[in-house]
């Protein structure tokens, strides 16, 4: 089925060639697994096999799908150390994403060239290519995002119920690839509610469809809650840890680093292709609406609701700082990932629309809207180029702090503080957690600022030790010092013990 059409085979072959070339390029520049999160992810997966403390429970400390997929390869020490274990997964994910971007654009256009250009926009995006050589879940997330979009369209258009299963499955997989995957569950449920209440007024169908969809789609979140309960013994504290309110403070750095690293090549393209904008989704809708072939209102809603709900959620939770820099909203890589996909689909469809205009298949009003939209996009991109790159580059590189981490780790291991619960911030991606021999069930991980603050109000209730990273400066810490004494301090970490 996958290789039914020649174009699919061609895209598959080209994807494998381009990704292999990219990996070779990164290898020559010693940039394979350059991001520190890469080694953390590899180690997390490996610890499932050979940790002295826990085995299976390691699958789940972080969104687990990537680590599960790594398991068949991570057994091999060579693949583990070199990081090639993850490159195999990346290449497959990248290829599938390319094929489905092609297929998605093909749904909306009559031409063959515009889907190919759309694929190229995604496939040759320097950030995407850079991720090929890193062990990070973003590429997988891209793949699930496009698969969800594609099958959502098919479900609404072809009315084949098997697609509902696929949408649910990929939503569940997306939610265990990155915590932001929950957005898909919310958005798709929202679309169903709109469709069956407002447009079709069929509440029975809404009930059936929602239950059928959610039964599979929420399994990922269900897993997270169960994991939290089993590993940490808390169900209230930890759902937020892996939920959508959870902040990956370093992910913007991942994205920033990737752009920075490859700024030496494609430097002129990075602003145009690498940057993202919420407005892209609105423009996407305009183009998709104009697309002469089989447009579908509910699929278009997907483009609108996904970023909208995401931002609203973040604002409501209020513990993420949406930074406005140079007039452009920036956020972590997840939101960027949506737009990288949106861009490719949008531009592909746009080209299809243009071809239709040239072949006089559109009426004059639609023509005007098309040109206006194009003009709008152009203005935005020119403005962005004028403003310069928006990505912050001043994030601390943990590589430079390796020594501090190492010394803290030595302290933990030698002093054997693992005799009571430890409250630790930023631990999900902290090398301290993955390198030191801490029993995970003893860690109360508070990366969420809101919960961290709550935890600091009375930590004595449930933890004996607190590990605070240097980046944390909170007025509440003064309360903590009354009941805890510093037993370790370096430039990166402070370790406190209950008095």
């Amino acid at each position, binding site marked *: 089925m996958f290789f039914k059409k020649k174009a699919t085979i061609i895209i598959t072959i080209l994807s494998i060639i381009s990704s292999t070339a990219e990996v070779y390029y990164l290898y020559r520049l010693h940039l394979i697994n350059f991001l520190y999160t890469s080694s953390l992810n590899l180690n997390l997966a490996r610890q499932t096999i050979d940790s002295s403390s826990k085995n299976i429970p390691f699958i789940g400390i972080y969104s687990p799908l990537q680590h599960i997929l790594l398991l068949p390869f991570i057994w091999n020490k060579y693949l583990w150390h070199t990081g090639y274990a993850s490159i195999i997964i990346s290449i497959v994910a990248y290829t599938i994403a390319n094929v489905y971007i092609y297929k998605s654009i093909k749904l909306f256009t009559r031409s063959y060239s515009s889907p190919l250009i759309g694929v190229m926009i995604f496939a040759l995006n320097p950030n995407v290519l850079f991720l090929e050589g890193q062990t990070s879940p973003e590429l997988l997330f891209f793949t699930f995002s496009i698969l969800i979009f594609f099958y959502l369209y098919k479900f609404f258009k072809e009315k084949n*119920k*098997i697609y509902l*299963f696929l949408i649910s499955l990929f939503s569940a997989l997306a939610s265990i690839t990155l915590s932001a995957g929950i957005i898909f569950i919310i958005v798709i449920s929202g679309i169903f509610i709109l469709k069956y209440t407002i447009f079709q007024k069929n509440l029975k169908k809404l*009930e059936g469809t929602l239950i*059928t969809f959610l*039964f*599979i789609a929420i399994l990922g979140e269900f897993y997270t809650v169960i994991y939290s309960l089993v590993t940490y013994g808390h169900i209230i504290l930890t759902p937020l840890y892996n939920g959508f309110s959870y902040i990956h403070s370093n992910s913007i750095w991942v994205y920033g680093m990737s752009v920075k690293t490859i700024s030496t090549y494609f430097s002129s393209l990075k602003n145009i292709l690498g940057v993202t904008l919420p407005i892209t989704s609105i423009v996407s809708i305009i183009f998709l609406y104009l697309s002469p072939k089989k447009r579908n209102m509910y699929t278009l809603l997907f483009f609108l609701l996904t970023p909208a709900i995401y931002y609203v959620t973040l604002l409501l939770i209020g513990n993420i700082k949406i930074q406005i820099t140079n007039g452009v909203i920036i956020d972590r890589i997840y939101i960027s990932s949506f737009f990288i996909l949106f861009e490719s689909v949008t531009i592909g469809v746009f080209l299809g629309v243009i071809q239709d205009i040239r072949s006089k298949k559109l009426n004059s009003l639609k023509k005007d809207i098309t040109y206006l939209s194009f003009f709008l996009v152009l203005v935005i991109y020119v403005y962005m180029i004028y403003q310069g790159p928006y990505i912050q580059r001043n994030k601390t590189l943990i590589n430079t702090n390796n020594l501090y981490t190492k010394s803290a780790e030595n302290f933990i291991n030698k002093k054997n503080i693992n005799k009571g619960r430890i409250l630790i911030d930023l631990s999900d991606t902290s090398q301290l957690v993955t390198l030191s021999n801490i029993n995970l069930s003893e860690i109360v991980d508070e990366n969420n600022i809101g919960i961290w603050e709550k935890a600091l109000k009375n930590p004595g209730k449930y933890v004996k030790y607190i590990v605070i990273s240097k980046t944390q400066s909170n007025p509440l810490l003064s309360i903590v010092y009354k009941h805890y004494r510093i037993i370790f301090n370096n430039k990166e970490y402070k370790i406190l013990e209950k008095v």
Partner: protein
Amino acid sequence: MANIDYKINYRNKKDYLFLPENHSAKKHIRIENIWFLYFVLSLILFLVLLKIIFNISIVIFISAIIAIFYFLFMLFKVVIVIKARNRPMVKISRKDLLKIKKKDLPIYTIIIPLYREENVIKQIKKAMMSIDYPKEKLDIIITLEEYDNYTREAIEENKMPKYFRRLILPNVNPKTKPKALNVAIREAKGQFIVIYDAEIVPDKNQLKKAYLAFKNHPEISVFQTRLDHYNVKQNILTNLFNAEFSFYYDLFLPGLQKFNLPIPLSGHSTHFRKEAIISVGAWDPYNVAEDCEIGIRLQRHGYKVDILDSFSKEEATSTLSGWIKQRTRWMKGFIQTSIVHMRYPIKFKNQIGGWINFIGFFFAVPGTVIINILNLLYWILLIIWLITKAPIISSSFPKPILYISFITFLAGNLMFTYLNLAGVYRRNKFAVVKYCILSPIYWILLSFATSRALIQFIFSPHSWEKTVHGTHLKNKNDRKENQNLALSK
């Protein structure tokens, strides 16, 4: 002959008992079953050796085997469902139906075996009369027991049309549905035969569809139709029953057919070529799930079965006791069928089409019984462990087995619940979807019924617990009476 009871005098039993006893469920303990004894003894010996030589606990070994069996069973169902996802059935379009010329249609025999069905006589009459088929080419045989005056009176009251024949069965044992069918088939005038139970309401054009299906597919000897219920909304049990059927007839049987695996047929709404039935020796009168058994036997003899895209609606058993009795009979029949056909396992393997088909049969028929019984045992074990935390239980599940068992338990329950859910959703029965969440409770009932079937199989293998039909009509009448009462007040 019309509207007049007629009775056939039989010279000897062979007139209706076509099956030789070694192919029937009359006696289960036979010399051929000795191999099974050998197998059990060898297994025990193997376990003892395992304990002596490798010091592996027998209990751990058994729990490992069970965990693997569960996993394989799950895998089997997934593979089957994937194959069935595009509804691989024989479909007849409306266009094709319109093209049929009346004169081309053959005589079609409908056999309706009745016993104490006085409640639904009106319904079956209406259902049969509304079938879209020339009446002069319909040959409807109603079989009746000599002593069943209730049904006979109800028939008299309802005045059946000319093409209904009433056949009085010989008053000899066994007094079962398959015996009735065996008697009736000799009287059938048509080359195609279908069995409708008392409460069945088939699609109006089902016979025409079946005729075209037989005509277009001369290689197929049996067409199984899709079953549904007309009293789904009656209560939670009927909803769950319907969910189970939606999965079974839309996602399971078509998948089995696609793989050419043996198909356990249903007891009604199955269309046969008469010569196929006769040549295999007709139904086994001693088997309480004669439908399942004949499906397997037909396939052993090289006859092919396919699924016809046409619905027959039946009454979902709506009372718990009725449901348990019905399910006990089905499961007992599954046990009988498994034993009868696996008396000569190698011969069976060769006839059924090789190891893959053998395994397919194993999972579909005896596997279902085994899983149901194991489910009950495991649920009890889990509850005891949760209450007592007995170390003897936890020691039987070392980590790797515990992980496999846990994953299979969790994934299995989720998967089978979802399959039920997907089945009803595909049939656009959106209101039933929510009830599917209760499927695990339904399976506990199923396990109970299967355990009951096992006990019955040992102590009374041929007893037939009849399903009472027409409860939905009673409820309707009750409702009407209440309404009338309320109005009069």
